[in-house]
């Protein structure tokens, strides 16, 4: 079982709040130096960094819009800020632009695919170089129960999340023998800003656990997949959904 190199850095995209913030904190608690990426919520990202530092961890807020395309520049910025190669990449950044397919515009489609799926590919591709060189890497893609299952009004989101899962499996197979694992985590109904407006009581009735999940519960799954202990886990999707997909 190979061990994480000492100067290894983790990059979490979309980490200023919600699941991303919880993931950043969990990885920092596990000894990763963490880049807390944000697009517009600088205050949120700084709060995450402050919380990590208060707990004795190491982190930096890194501003970048991952949908803009320059993955190499972001990775270089992170490596310079934290003094080591990015050996854990958590592709968490995601948006929703909901509507039934009949009403969904090209822009709604392009924005969701362009934020939730394409940047995950580009950043994964661009981070593999360092990971392969180090013979150690952890790519974790934050997917969703939506994608593998239907959710009316989210054909764009479902396509992006299902796409992440397909991409995860194929890239995992390509790089496994270099000590790089690629996995997906599929959260179910988690209490965050993204789900705040939804009819919670009605949705919870359909979940075997009869409650929403927390960002920390998703982060715990990511923390495991990023750890040395998960070196033989690759190409898989870990559902954190209270039994919704069972």
């Amino acid at each position, binding site marked *: 079982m190979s061990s994480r190199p000492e100067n290894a850095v983790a990059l979490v995209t979309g980490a200023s709040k919600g699941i991303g913030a919880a993931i950043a904190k969990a990885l920092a608690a596990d000894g990763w130096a963490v880049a807390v990426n944000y697009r517009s919520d600088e205050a949120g990202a700084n709060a995450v960094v402050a919380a990590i530092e208060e707990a004795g961890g190491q982190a930096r807020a890194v501003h970048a819009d991952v949908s803009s395309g320059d993955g190499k520049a972001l990775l270089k910025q992170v490596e310079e800020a934290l003094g080591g190669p990015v050996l854990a990449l958590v592709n968490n950044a995601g948006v929703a632009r909901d509507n039934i397919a009949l009403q969904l515009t090209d822009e709604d489609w392009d924005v969701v695919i362009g934020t939730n799926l394409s940047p995950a590919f580009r950043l994964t591709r661009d981070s593999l170089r360092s990971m*392969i060189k180090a013979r150690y890497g952890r790519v974790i893609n934050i997917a969703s129960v939506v994608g593998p299952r239907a959710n009316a009004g989210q054909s764009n989101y479902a396509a992006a999340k299902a796409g992440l899962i397909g991409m995860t499996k194929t890239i995992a197979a390509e790089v496994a023998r270099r000590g790089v694992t690629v996995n997906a985590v599929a959260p179910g109904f988690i209490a965050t800003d993204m789900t705040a407006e939804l009819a919670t009581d009605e949705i919870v009735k359909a979940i075997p656990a009869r409650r929403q999940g927390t960002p920390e519960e998703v982060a715990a799954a990511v923390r495991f997949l990023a750890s040395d202990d998960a070196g033989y886990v690759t190409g898989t999707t870990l559902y954190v959904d209270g039994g919704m997909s069972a």
Partner: protein
Amino acid sequence: MANAITEEAVQKTVYEALPQFGVDEADITREATFEDLDVDSLDLAELSQIIEDEYGVALKGDDVGKIKTVGDAIDLVVQKGS
């Protein structure tokens, strides 16, 4: 900083890199095909990265697709670097 691109230097780099991919040193010749050496696309991608780090010469996907033998790889790097 990129090193000088001579055939001798590039050959040394390539010959030293191939064993990392499980290739037996005794099997490495200019005429050996990557297929015979069991060097696949991931290995070639990594070899390209080693060459780029050493000599500043970037081998693109199309280039790598045309390389069949160890000699092809060495000659291509020397040609691109000249």
